[in-house]
């Protein structure tokens, strides 16, 4: 079956959750990856949302992390102060799964401003939300984002969330692991190293044992297209 690079990215993100028990789900694309993971590699994964939900089992694809479908049928719904203090800061979260607007070679994430002057930004981004808190308190952090020279930069304009806890970045082109700096460890099928280099704002370090990501299976694609996101909310 043919597939888009966004689908490959979402599938690779889902697979990265294999074996993880508790995932803190960030805004945007991570939502569809965790939904796929829950139906494939991680059926017992507990999903935690900064909106105050633990153990969500949504009957439809949530359009945001505050969607009512995340509450109905969940294990627990609570105040945010409880969620941030006891669940996240308390150390229950294995992996925080985030999106990002801009990221650098050290894994620092910028979701605050584009431009050098905070007070007079070229472009105002949404800000931290829970990202800065998740980055410091989750066992490890995965980032899921499209890669380009604009988003993959040598040095972010503003460090919203420190790269310290980041362990893995999944993009539409491949996958990076956090070593001394972000290191390319997998290329998605059909993507060349040159393409990755062209879409990265620094000289990419490539792992000695670079692998090719297995293509999405028919079942993964079927789940994405027919069950999880038939209206193409996340996938288009």
């Amino acid at each position, binding site marked *: 079956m043919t597939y888009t690079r966004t689908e490959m990215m979402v599938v690779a993100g889902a697979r990265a959750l294999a074996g993880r028990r508790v995932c803190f789900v960030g805004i945007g694309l991570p939502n569809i990856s965790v939904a796929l993971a829950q139906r494939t590699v991680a059926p017992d994964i507990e999903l935690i949302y900064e909106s105050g939900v633990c153990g969500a089992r949504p009957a439809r694809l949530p359009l945001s992390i505050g969607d*009512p479908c995340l509450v109905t049928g969940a294990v627990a719904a609570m105040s945010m102060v409880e969620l941030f203090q006891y669940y996240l800061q308390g150390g229950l979260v294995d992996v925080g799964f985030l999106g990002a607007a801009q990221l650098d070679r050290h894994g620092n994430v910028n979701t605050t401003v584009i431009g050098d002057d905070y007070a007079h930004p070229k472009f105002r981004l949404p800000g931290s939300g829970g990202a800065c808190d998740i980055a410091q308190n989750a066992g490890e952090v995965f980032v899921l984002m499209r890669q380009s020279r604009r988003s993959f930069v040598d040095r972010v304009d503003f460090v919203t969330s420190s790269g310290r806890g980041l362990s893995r970045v999944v993009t539409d082109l491949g996958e990076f692991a956090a070593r001394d700096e972000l290191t390319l460890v997998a290329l998605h099928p059909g993507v060349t190293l040159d393409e990755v280099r062209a879409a990265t704002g620094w000289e990419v370090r490539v792992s000695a044992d670079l692998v090719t990501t297995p293509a999405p299976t028919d079942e993964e694609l079927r789940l994405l297209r027919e069950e999880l996101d038939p209206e193409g909310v996340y996938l288009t």
Partner: protein
Amino acid sequence: MREAVADLVRDGDTLAIEGFTHLISFAAGHEVIRQRKRDLTLCRLTPDVIYDQLIGAGVARKLVFSWLGNPGVGSLHAVRRLVEGPGFEVEEYSHFGMVGRYAAGAARLPFFPLRSYVDSDLPTVNDNIRTVTSPFDGEEVYAVPPLHPDVTIVHAQRADKHGNTQAWGLLGCQKEAAFAARRVIVVVEELVEESVIRADPNRTLLPGLKVDAVVHCPRGAHPSYAQGHYDRDNRFYLAWEHISRDPALLEAWLDEWVHGTRDHAGYLAKLGDSYFDDLTPAPAPSGSVDYGDYR
């Protein structure tokens, strides 16, 4: 609503209309716009479309927040126009920081300690994010100061006439924002007998003794949602992207839907009765538990 907002919200106030995606009192926000309040400091974790409308209408001089966007859609353009230009003040935190500010306010503490902000640039642009040292092991963690809104407005599923208020679904930080506030307005889908509240005391979000006004305003959270009552009107959130991009369209929208309506009943009448048909979920009852009649 008119009286509650007129009496309790004053020009220059610090105002929090809280609710994380859920239970956002658009009806109260619209009334603030109708009454042409000025120079407000607006606080919210996620300013959402309601603050885009308020700020677009010119009621505010400052915004305190932690995530600035139209959830699931994109930007809040009216806010961004002001933030990217000069003269409008912003103060930003992470969600945990904002939650902590309300919590410190509710608990009347001089600061709220939290593990966040290490190696982040946020403390460099916000002097209200500082460090504090543990008197036990000497460890340093970050801290934020209390936030005491002059007025907090929360929407809930039900309250009695004394203001004893119950909510279910996402609870956000409404409890903390209300306990932290000097004055509290509760807006509800249903005004119920006191006995309904007293039948399930663990469900209570706020006691009446903390509430200054109760307003009965069904569907007052539209286009956000009220768990069990109606769904989020995602079409409206999508449509807002287009309206908000263009100041003229935004002004026309405010003229038609806010200034052009007398109150939220007028706003609903404009939407039409059938509007909520496909926003109404099938029931999913919680079930009842037994408290026992001890006498």
